[in-house]
């Protein structure tokens, strides 16, 4: 709508990686991710969506490792609609059909620094038994119309889901100008913040 080139924004840089997942029963999975954010947010650099390689478990470890890097910078004018990372995991079932293995979402951490998030994953349940069976047989299990649904609270009451596994994501968060714009994101080391702002002001000068 309006050009925001000259208006003030704050920046949120998300680095990190989708480290891996823990799905005890499934193998050969890949993961898709995307961000969901509010009206006041826009990605400036980096990939907004991505898809990982297919990974399989080794005989020793039971973890699926993707180590898929995330690098996105957002700009925003309001913390409302803070970006959420939505991950969805897919993989083949017994018959080789690609089916969904889980959806999950987490907010990007607010505070600068390193964070590790373990996202519990779930899939929608078929509405009735026969459907479940045919879905299993034909490899057409219920899926969300849009994975982004899991980032919203609205309308979820009509669905039934089953829990599936976990995806671990590590984040390295940097923010710029948050404090200057009057948003204090909690207990960060004050000295570092100060130095950051001072360097900032120097830059401005």
């Amino acid at each position: 709508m309006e050009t925001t080139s000259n208006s003030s924004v704050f920046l949120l840089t998300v680095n990190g990686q989708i480290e891996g997942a823990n799905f005890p029963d499934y193998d050969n999975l890949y993961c898709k991710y995307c961000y969901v954010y509010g009206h006041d947010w826009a990605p400036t650099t980096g990939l907004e969506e991505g898809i990982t390689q297919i990974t399989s478990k080794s005989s020793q470890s039971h973890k699926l490792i993707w180590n898929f890097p995330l690098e996105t910078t957002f700009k925003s004018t309001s913390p409302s609609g803070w970006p959420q990372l939505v991950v969805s995991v897919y993989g083949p079932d017994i018959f080789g059909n690609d089916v969904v293995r889980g959806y999950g979402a987490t907010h990007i951490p607010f505070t600068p620094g390193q964070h590790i998030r373990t996202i519990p994953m779930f899939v929608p349940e078929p509405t009735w038994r026969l459907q479940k069976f045919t879905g299993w047989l034909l490899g057409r299990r219920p899926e969300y119309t849009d994975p982004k649904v899991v980032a919203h609270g609205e309308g979820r009451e009509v669905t039934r889901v089953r829990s599936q596994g976990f995806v671990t994501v590590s984040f390295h968060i940097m923010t710029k100008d948050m404090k200057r714009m009057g948003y204090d994101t909690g207990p960060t080391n004050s000295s570092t913040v100060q130095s950051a702002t001072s360097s900032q002001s120097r830059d401005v000068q």
Partner: protein
Amino acid sequence: MAASSDIREKLRKKRRALQDTLVKNKNEDDIQALVPSAKFNVDKQPTAMKEAEGSDEDPGETLRRTLRAQREKRKTKLLEQSFVQDEDVGEDSPTEYNSPNEGPSSRVDDSVVFTRPPTGSQRGVSVKSEQPSSSLHLDTFVTRHLQEKLRAARSKAESLQQQETSEDSSEPVSRLQRLKDRDTITRFDRKAHPVSSGRHDDPLTLRTRVKFREPARRVEKDFPTAEEAYNFFTFNYEPDQPSKPESKSRKRQKQRDGVEEDERDENGQEEAEEEEEDEAEEDNQDQNEFQSEEAPLVRNEDDLFVIDHSPQDFVEVRKAEYVGFKTRVQRERELLFTPSFLTVPTSVKLPENTKPRFLEDEGLYVGQRPAVSLTNENISENRVLKMAEGSKWFGDDGKILALPDPIKESSTRPPLFHMDEELDPALQTVYRKAIKSQYANLYIAGATDPEGDYQLDVDVSGLIFSHHPLFSREHVLASRLAQLYDQYLSRQQNNLTGHLTEKLNGLRKALRNMIRIHGEQGSSEALQHRISEYSLEVRNTRQLRDLEQEKDRTLLRSIIKVWKEIKSLRDFQKYTNTPFKLFLRRENVDRALDEWEYEGEILKEVLELEAESEEQYQKKLAEFNKQLEVWKLWRKKQKAKRKKKKKKKKGQTQDDTEEDEEEQEAGEEEEQDEIESEDPFEEDPVKPEVPERPEVDSLERWVREKASRIRRKPGEPILIPELSTSGGITASDLCPRAEVARREDVSRRSLFIKILYNYKEVSRTDSRSLSTDFRVHFGQIFNLKVLNCPQSINLQVFEEIGSSYSLLAQVFVPVPDPSVVTGRAPIEEIEFSSNQHVMFDHEGVGSDVPLSFESDGSNKLTLLTSGKLSCCVSWGVGEEGVPLAPPLSQHPAGAYRGPGHLDAVSYIGASGLYDMKKIGEWAIQSRLDPNDPKNTSIMHLLKVATSGEVAAPDYFRLEHLQEEFNFVSDEEMERSKRFRLLRLRNQEVPEFRNYKFVPLLEREISDKVFQDYEKRLREGETIDTRQHLDPHRAAVAKYLQQIRESVINRFIHTKHHYQLSDLVIEEEIPSIGLLGINLFKLAESKRPLKPQRKERKKVTAQNLSDGDIRLLVNVIRAHNIPIRKPQSSKPGQSSQSAIQGSDWYLSQVQVRPFVEVSFQRTVLQTTTAEGPNPSWNEELQLPFNAPNGDYSTGSLQSVKDEVFINIFDEVLYETGPSDKSRATSIHTQIEKHWLGSVKIPFSTIYSQSKIDGAFKVNTPAVLLGYSREHGSTSVYDQWQSTQGGTFIRLFITVEPQLVPGESVREKIKEAEFNSQEDERLLQASEKFEKHAAGGYPDRPCITTVIDLSGKTVFITRYIRPLNPPQEFLDAFPNNPQEATSLVARYVSLIPSLPDQVSFSATCDLLSTCDQFLTLLAGDEQEHAVLLCNYFLFLGKKAWLIIGTAIPEGPTAYVLTHEQSGYFIWNPSSGQFYEKGDTFCPLQTVGCLVNADNVWFNIQKNPSPLHTNFDVTKAKMWKPFFSRSFSHPGLSSVQPEELVYRQTDKAAAAELQDRVEKILKEKIMEWRPRHPTRWNRYCNTTLKQFLPKLELSRGQDVAEGHRVELQNLLGDYRISGFPLHLPFSEVGPIIEAVHSTGVHNIHSSNVEFALAVYIHPYPNNVLSVWVYLASLVRT
């Protein structure tokens, strides 16, 4: 070794015999086993509560005691042994003790041991290998020694093991092999040792016990003797490897019996001793045992030998050992056991010489055995048999013992058959609300941070029982004495009596003084008053003193009484239990003085009493007098009455003098009493009695009596009791048995206290034994780190007897105030009691048991266990003396975090919004416990409230916490542009619904943002006449706009209602039918000749964004396009051209049409085709953008955009030959001439998802330069041309397919389903519609519609004859046909507005005709209803057709029946079609409606062509109202008559000018780079044509018209056309003009002509004509 085998045999026999007896005498055994075990228990821990055995029987007792002593001794020994062994003994000993055949049973026991040695010996080997090599010498010695012994043993064993080799090292081969294997292992181990033997020495020896060192050192010096070696073996290893010496020692035991016994053997031996076993047998048995062990011992020998050879072994290279298959099998057989699956013969399973018994055959009940396969049973039998004692697993019948099959055949749970019916109430599930855990989340705020750790110190100092079940009688009395003494002491300390006496004396003195003064100075009122007050005070004080004195006296008396009782009890029972001693100290007093005081006191009291009684008398007297007065007054009245009566009686005696009367009166006064009795019936004041004067003598007597009762007699010494605990307690030896038992019981008991914090045990004290004086001292302080808010602190007193403990009592300690800090808090004594019932058979009195101290058993009292717990709970003090208590403010807040305390009062408390007084009252009324921690905050609040003034506001706040969440004030919220923007966006106001990037800073928001919004808000109030040109229409438009907004708002609401299909994609289950079709499809040809369209995947709209949706328009072909007429400048030439016709026809192109599709200002066009029936077959893709980027269903439904499909003729003109390059090039100019258009609203496409069919092209009535006459003369063409229509075949759809928002509509329909119709009718209609939808899903059927107020109305109510405007009727009075078409035209002139756009939420919203005429907008249904009603008024037979048409989709048409047949009217175009017309846009006929009934079409083919419209035929039409459900006589919702307003002609003219002006401006605007010249002459000419066109209602008047024009404008090449539109707004007119593309002619010499004509019809219905022409001078 024959002996040993014999013994074995014997043993086995005996064992069997024993088993037999065991089995047979099971019952006996049980009893036997029970009793001793009980006894065993008793002597283990003789509880007080045992069976009522004769404990007083002395001989039995002594016997038992001796036995017990013996056993005790034994037990102490046993206890020294390891736990396992102990357990073994514990199990075995009772049976041994009791069974008649003790020997065998013990042997059975031994046989268990018998199986053990192999493992033991193996362990021995491994240990051996660990021995340091420095003891090599010792080893060799031992080896030699052992060898000797071994040889001796083997000679014995040879006879036993005959099958084995007779060699010296007679060993089974397999064993030998195994040993060899082991050799290598040991060697491997040793490799390491010799290398660093010296170093290894010390640590290794350290491992063994110290004892080991000595012999080891000695070994180094010289060889030990046999004795030493033995000792070495027997001693040193004992503690470390208990099992290893076992084997060794046993070997020795043969020689040295019982001297130094292994513990295990000791055990065995002991048993033997105790059982007085046959020594010999025992010996043999031992022997037997050891011999069997010898064989494994040999291995040691081998080992030892190897050690000698070891140096060679290190370097020896050997072949890999091959073990033959057989040997391996043999070896395996040694280790492994494969149970055979063959049936085991019964004889093996049963004891010898017994036949299997079959209990079932004997008639006993035997349950069914669980089903086990025979093989499995055999295997397990074989396995069991292999075990020692295996045979005990078999029953009498030779089968494995088994319980009956527990699985029942049928379910024990009663089946629930009746699923539909009501369940038995007992089986119904009852819903209970979930209860929240009460103590979750009670954390003190801030407790998580390190500063906030709070500490609660609980000091449990001790416990005193005031009664305990183990109290003896003396204890009971003693405790009572102690209590009384305590009371006495406390009274003594307070000395209330003394205080009161002094006070009394003081008061008396003061009173005396006062009276004296009073006597001197005369009475003053104040003084009098004071005197009376004083005397009252004196009286009260005296009474109090008397009371206290009496209490003192009785206390003293009862102390003495109790003490006497104790003394007598002690005398009686001849022993003392308590150390209490009471001394009574006598203080002698001076008798005379005492007496004097005593008398003086009495005197004073008597005097006072006298005075008091006198006073009282006076008072009574005064009262009496007063009452007397009253009475007298009454008497007088009475008398007066009587006199009147008398007067009446003696009427004559009026001459009596008044004196007489007076006399009479006086007389009567005297005889008052008599008179009173005269009339007892009348209620009258009783005559008061004269009060008695008090007697002084009786007073004195009473005082003296009292004094003697409550006071010490004069001269009697003062008794001061002193209780001491110096008395001795009789030693237990001197006490009777019952008392001893009690004392023992007491000593066994111990107590501990559990500390429960918030009902969770946090710690407990050590258990302390109960002392004889029933005091327990704990003296422990517990520091509790507190995280949760203290709810309760509870101390539970537990009594422990042996290992079991029971809860005695609970003591709740109040949670201390934060100010109560450790060190300053006093220890409090908290009383407790328990009501448990305890009874003893010894001297203990028990608890809750009636107890009497009287000899006759009367005066019983029941004592409950009770006592005092002294403890102290306080908040801890941290370093630097900081109290570790939570701050007071947090404390109540934390307490109220619990869900149990969610009461509004405390929450509001923060702002003090309540009535203090009321709370105070409530607190008093409900008697709140101030100590209850729950109430602390209220109590605190009340305290504060009562101390200081708290202004209670007189308002109530609903959300009292809201204020805390406001981060800015409301004013600031209003003022801030940013917040306003955010709020508006959140409210989904259309302008801001998808606003992105609300700027962060206030100053970055420009005011422009709100302009549109504010403008819209302003518009809401003022009507913008400029845009609407017509005030009435503007008002209507505004009204429509409002409805639209409300509908859209409702949509936004419903948008948030999701269905599963909105969120989850789920494949539908293929039905069986579908599966069949799919199977059938397999046989289909892969590329069918006529491919069918496949269903596309539907996409819900909400996930879409810009550019995702495209509109696909497939332009296939067109029919009957007008063709160009040959240009001729003069009319005269026409004949010539006609002559040349055929020639010209061949040379000239008739028409070169192309199609241009414009949608949302995107314009695409097809290629140019040729001829009047072109075929393009082209697909055009147009992008679609939703308004505001909102792709929700509701938003899409309200899209108002239309798809314009225009047909143009591409005309090439040579611009004239250019002289220069005449030969080489021709300049042509392309012009496009509009031929016609089709307009399809997007909402139609959206709701139908695809539109496919031939559409009639809306061609202008006159098309200058074109004619419909085709050159060809074929019959078909002729016929077609007479039908007068151009048709275009289109296929339009949206890609991807969008799910129409039907669900939303359904939801709203359900939500607003209220109606005034009869419920039965509604049900019937629902059923009817459902049935119709079920049978013919593609035929629309409507029986009910929703009116503007949202109510459901039956559709027939809308049909009613209504009058059309009178002028139509008057216009052609003789020609009804004309009137009909006029009416139809009138209806069609009312602007049409698709429902999806206007009332998108409710599709079937149907307004009545008057509403429709007021709104001047409606959909096809409203048009059809109006038209139908007009037709009915005109006397026609008319019906409403509910059906589907192209392109509207579901729609409504009108059917009329006339003599010539049925006609179908399109109400929105005003055109009619005959029933057989193939070009009728109506495709299916769903149902017919008239005022009486609804008929549903049940014919095979629903197209109007094939439909029989005779509704009387039941086979073809299904009526709604039939005989079974007759028409209930529904009244119409339509008005009786329509009133029309004549439209203001002047306004119409004004509008006409304005429209013309606007259009001219627009056309110039569209041609920004070219000058637009208007041909005024032409303008006026055209203007003249238009009214004619209106008159002829658009009938073809083209020819004359053109000629006329041609005449007028000779040299111009004219192309142009009139457009005809109903008028709603200017916008659509502009749009229509734009779509013709007239303005696109760019030739330099073009001129334009434009004329507008607006014809007014009644009720503001306007017909708009726009004539557009372009002129090019040739």
